[in-house]
């Protein structure tokens, strides 16, 4: 089936491409108009930047140059115009290693665990301890690029003591290891996320209900990092709902459930104590999607207003956040601190404070928010403009730095991810970058 599908997919794409309309008569003119518009906006940006620097120079003592680049924090300049983003904007063409900006964020770990297992780091726990997922024997190279379903366990690695403590094996014993010759074993569905003492993750389990019939479930698990006791929080039939990434929030675990039809609309946000209990849908959350921790944003289709209501599904707190308007063509995605999205005409990008005060809108590339929405990441680029590495930016402190070619952006569906990692070659030490260090205010 797969081969036929893949072959047909190739044919279908080629045939569809052949049926695509050709260029309009004014195609080249339109391209030139867009280019002129970009040039004009960039010119205005540079002029604004120069003006801002001159004004700053007459009023303040210019800080001496330091090895750490610090762009001015957007939130400390309430009078800054959105069109004058001289401060708070990374300048990726100036190489600025993130390891020099946040030296304590960098951890060098051995290529394998003490028992020889390959692993992937999911969180820095402190005290030289790391929440890791165990990968199959023989897994080599950059752990970041390993397929999620290949993980076989959730463990705590104490790098100082050279010990590993198992929290859970994946897939759990309740699942079938191999449901049939053409059916893969079940496995991890979301990388574990940690908040304080709570770690949570999702897997897919397959239960044989007969010789020829199997049922698939998405399971959500949680455990105490300290005690390591894993608890099955809920089990949702795959046919019933699509389960989003479970996120720890204090002593609770929250997740979004989506309809299984093609619209895939969020049908509600659920919460359950991490220690176990009965999952309950948070009232009034149909149509909301979790964005960072317990914060959710309406999953609207179009930007038809300037504000939106961010909702904390645990406390019920609501805050008004910008979602669009004159300066933003597209909806902004918000966390409790920052919003990120596109600037006007989609030729620039924006990161603005969630309280609606002005922020940088002339970013040269799109940034996504991670580590609970506190730090912004974007794909880096080499001298030819090709994607390479990751730019780490704390828009609050103005600090930014670049991670090298071994690093890649995390999946945007897991915005609570708190670490990045890279390995220069198989057998080399694993380098871990702790985003929670970069997201600190100072």
């Amino acid at each position, binding site marked *: 089936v797969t081969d036929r599908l893949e072959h047909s997919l190739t*044919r279908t794409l080629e045939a569809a491409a052949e049926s695509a309309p050709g260029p309009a008569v004014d195609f*080249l003119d339109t*391209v030139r108009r867009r280019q002129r518009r970009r040039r004009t906006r960039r010119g205005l940006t540079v002029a604004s930047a120069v003006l801002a620097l001159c004004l700053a120079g007459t009023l303040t003592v210019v800080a001496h140059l330091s090895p750490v680049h610090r762009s001015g924090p957007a939130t400390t300049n309430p009078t800054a115009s959105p069109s004058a983003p001289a401060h708070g904007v990374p300048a990726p063409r100036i190489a600025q290693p993130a390891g020099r900006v946040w030296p304590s964020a960098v951890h060098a770990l051995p290529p394998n665990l003490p028992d020889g297992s390959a692993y992937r780091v999911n969180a820095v726990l402190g005290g030289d301890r790391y929440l890791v997922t165990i990968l199959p024997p023989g897994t080599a190279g950059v752990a970041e690029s390993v397929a999620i379903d290949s993980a076989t366990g959730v463990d705590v690695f104490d790098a100082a003591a050279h010990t590993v403590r198992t929290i859970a094996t994946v897939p759990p014993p309740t699942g079938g290891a191999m449901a049939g010759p053409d059916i893969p074993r079940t496995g991890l569905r979301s990388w574990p996320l940690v908040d304080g003492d709570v770690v949570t993750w999702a897997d897919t389990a397959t239960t044989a209900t007969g010789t020829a019939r199997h049922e698939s479930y998405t399971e959500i698990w949680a455990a105490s990092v300290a005690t390591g006791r894993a608890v099955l929080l809920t089990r949702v039939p795959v046919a019933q709902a699509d389960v989003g990434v479970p996120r720890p929030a204090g002593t609770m675990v929250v997740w979004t459930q989506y309809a299984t039809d093609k619209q895939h609309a969020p049908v509600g946000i659920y919460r359950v104590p991490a220690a176990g209990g009965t999952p309950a849908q948070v009232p009034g959350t149909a149509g909301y999607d979790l964005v960072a921790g317990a914060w959710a944003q309406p999953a609207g289709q179009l930007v038809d207003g300037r504000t939106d209501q961010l909702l904390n599904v645990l406390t019920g707190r609501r805050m008004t956040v910008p979602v669009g308007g004159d300066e933003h063509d597209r909806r902004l995605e918000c966390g409790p601190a920052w919003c990120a999205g596109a600037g006007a005409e989609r030729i620039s990008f924006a990161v603005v404070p969630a309280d609606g005060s002005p922020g940088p809108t002339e970013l040269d590339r799109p940034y996504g928010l991670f580590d609970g929405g506190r730090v912004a990441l974007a794909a880096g680029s080499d001298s030819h403009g090709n994607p390479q590495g990751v730019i780490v930016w704390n828009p609050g402190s103005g600090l930014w730095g670049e991670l090298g070619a071994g690093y890649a952006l995390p999946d945007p569906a897991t915005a609570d991810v708190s670490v990045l990692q890279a390995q220069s070659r198989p057998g080399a030490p694993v380098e871990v970058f702790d985003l929670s260090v970069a997201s600190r205010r100072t």
Partner: protein
Amino acid sequence: MEFEEFVRARSAALLRYGYVLAGNPHDAADLCQEALARLASTWSRVRNKTNPEGYVRTTMARLHINRWRRTRRESLVGEVPERGYADAGFDRVDGGSALWTALVALPPRQRTVLVLRYYEHHSDEEIAAVLGVSRGTVRSQAARGLDKLRAGWAGAAPQAAGYPTAGPPAGGRPAASHPAASHPAASHQDRTATGRSS
């Protein structure tokens, strides 16, 4: 070659690429023109150092993905009203209109990965480089996209070696009784690759 000459020579091909990426001619033109405008600003440097068409195609894919990043929640409900995508092009796709409809119904990032793999014939490593994500993300996105396409495929596809004349319901869910059709890990690629990152 001058920029104008390049545009005249390659715009049709780039629009075809944009069409399979975006799923409709309007967004295809938007993607293509935006990428070309960016190329125009750096034409001399790109022409001398890299392949301009590769630059444009990479830019188009990244623009498309980044658009998804900013609007992923919008797209969950935003695609259906625009299913007027089923324009003239689909009907002319030999036996593949149902598959194309299902492909268009995929989330944009999954569709982009499948387009780069099955239309551009990139390896997963190349796709990861183009999109600036990890290879694991590419594989999981491809697996999920194929899962959704495959959901109705097994039942709808002819048993013989021919190609389908009827595809699955667009975006239909995998059958719950068949975990291979529902789990992200269920792709041929993932099974054979054993999750390694060689």
